């Protein structure tokens, strides 16, 4: 049991291999080697414009790397459409929240349960027993997730009417409804008050344990990053400048320079 756990935690789930992303003349990500170990909470940090969101977009198939490879569980996923990568177990949230605004909180989460839907169009039209069982299953799972994120009371409210913090949490709940292997969080604490940030920080490792996830966290709030991550990968202008434990990173002179400028 213990041995098995060690084995799997040493396994790389998601990796970029000397990946480069160009936008015309701008090199947003350059020769990046990023490795995310199974079961890890990895922090991906760097100053504004460092390329963090671009890395997420490459990992999820929104952008295709100009060169280099992206691997999920050892298999290249370059060129796969985003929905296919999602189906293989990579879920994400967005820096600029992307909820389904007109749909209720419950429906937002239910949409992400569709992956387990087996009922075809005909069954849907006939409202067969299987179709109904699946609808109920999706609803129950969605409700349980809303419960977990303290959103059950808002389940019928349109997503766009929720407070900022609730929207951020709803986005995480929606991502989890896919039952992903890897969860990419893009600045989940942005716009949250210090109290909410603290709760979120505590929740991240709990989520990892409960849902058997691997988490990559992009975040500017250093208290959250240092508190939630086991390992941190620092990028600046699309390039790796440091990788290590939170303690190492906090003491790393290059990181300090990147964040504070050359004093």
């Amino acid at each position: 049991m213990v041995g098995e756990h060690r084995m799997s935690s040493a396994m790389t789930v998601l990796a970029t291999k000397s990946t480069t992303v160009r936008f015309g003349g701008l090199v947003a990500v350059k020769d990046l080697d990023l490795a995310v170990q199974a079961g890890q909470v990895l922090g991906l940090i760097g100053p504004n414009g460092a390329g963090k969101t671009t890395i997420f977009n490459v990992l999820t198939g929104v952008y295709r790397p100009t060169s280099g490879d992206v691997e999920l569980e050892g298999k290249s996923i370059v060129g796969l459409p985003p929905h296919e990568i999602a189906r293989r177990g990579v879920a994400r949230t967005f820096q600029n929240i992307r909820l389904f605004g007109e749909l209720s909180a419950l429906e937002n989460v239910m949409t992400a349960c569709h992956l387990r839907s087996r009922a075809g169009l005909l069954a849907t039209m006939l409202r067969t027993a299987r179709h109904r069982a699946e609808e109920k299953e999706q609803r129950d799972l969605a409700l349980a997730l809303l419960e977990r994120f303290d959103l059950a009371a808002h389940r019928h409210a349109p997503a766009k009417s929720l407070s900022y913090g609730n929207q951020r949490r709803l986005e995480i709940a929606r991502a989890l409804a896919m039952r992903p292997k890897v969860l990419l969080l893009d600045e989940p604490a942005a716009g949250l008050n210090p109290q909410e940030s603290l709760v979120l920080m505590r929740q991240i490792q709990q989520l990892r344990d409960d849902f058997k996830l691997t988490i990559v966290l992009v975040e500017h709030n250093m208290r959250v990053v240092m508190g939630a991550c086991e390992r941190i990968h620092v990028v600046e202008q699309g390039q790796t400048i440091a990788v290590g434990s939170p303690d190492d990173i906090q003491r790393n002179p290059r990181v300090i320079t990147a964040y504070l400028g050359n004093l």
Partner: protein
Amino acid sequence: MNIWKPHLGGRSWLGGIAVVAGFFLLNEAFVHGVFGYGLSAYYLRVITLVGISMVLAVSLTLVNGCAGQFSIGHAGFMAVGAYASAAVTHFGGAPFIALLEILPAWPVHTLRLWVSLAVGAAVGGVAGWLVGLPTLRLRGDYLAIVTLGFGEIIRVVLLNIEPTGGALGFTNIAQGPEVPGRSPDQRFALFLEETMFFWVALVATGTILVVGRLAYSSFGRSLAAIRENEIAAAAIGIDTTRAKTTAFVVSAALTGVAGGLYAHYDNYLNPSSFTFLRSVEIVTMIVLGGLGSLSGAIVGAGVLTILPEALRDLTRLFPPSVTAAAPFLASLPDYRMVLYALLLVGLMIARPQGLYGRREWPWLARLFLTRDGEKGVG
């Protein structure tokens, strides 16, 4: 557990039979004046056209309302379905006429109509697939441009196809081609004349049920997700191209059926019935009713079909003394299309979200939702 057990168990079949019987009795009443409720040919025509409009509006809702795509060429799919099913009826009548010798008339006629409508659906659906697959991959307004072009191309092509009448129109659809020295077979044409209200009512109900159940399901939520945020929809694993194409094909097929009904109702088709204006009219119906609401599409179809007719009778609202005093009022019906436009503009200013927004009549919604159903939005 029986996977195929339908929603309400036995009761839904009973309901289905009751609806069919109800439409049949209404048809008898309207057409033959049984029970003293006979309708003039004019009124019967208006309500039958309302039914066809409902099929058009409700099926367009799946694309423009639920999935948030913008098709402005559905007249093209209607035309394709209309001409395909009319051609099957016109040129393929021989086996059915032969069957009439050995079987009672109404099952044979019914089968003949259904075969033609099915062909209309299939051809409409295939056209939808051909138009949808390349364009729905793209985001934005490509679909509007391509469907617009498609509608016009279809119309121009139909103008130039001689066997189906070209610019002169497709006449005597139900009687079949003229054979010198033989009088045409009128039996199917008469059958259609007497039963089209029934068939239109039945298809309209079926369309509402099919589209409603798709819209208020996991599939419908996927469409709504695409409408609300396509990037996020893909990020949770929705194959957006596939979902949009499926919705588009279903919509185009149902629109093809509406075309088939239209062809068999009038027993005549003309390419000029399927101009860009027809497409716009269908879009107007669902925008007026409330984009995404089936109740709205139903009401929009009714209002937009009845209003231009009702405005014809406008002068009858005034007593003769009034029209004598102000003669210009007598010519109001000449301006009915202006009034019609003004009414629409006024309505959209008063209720920009349409008459129903995204809401549904509760009794209608109950047909779509699953039993433990909390509301799902399409």
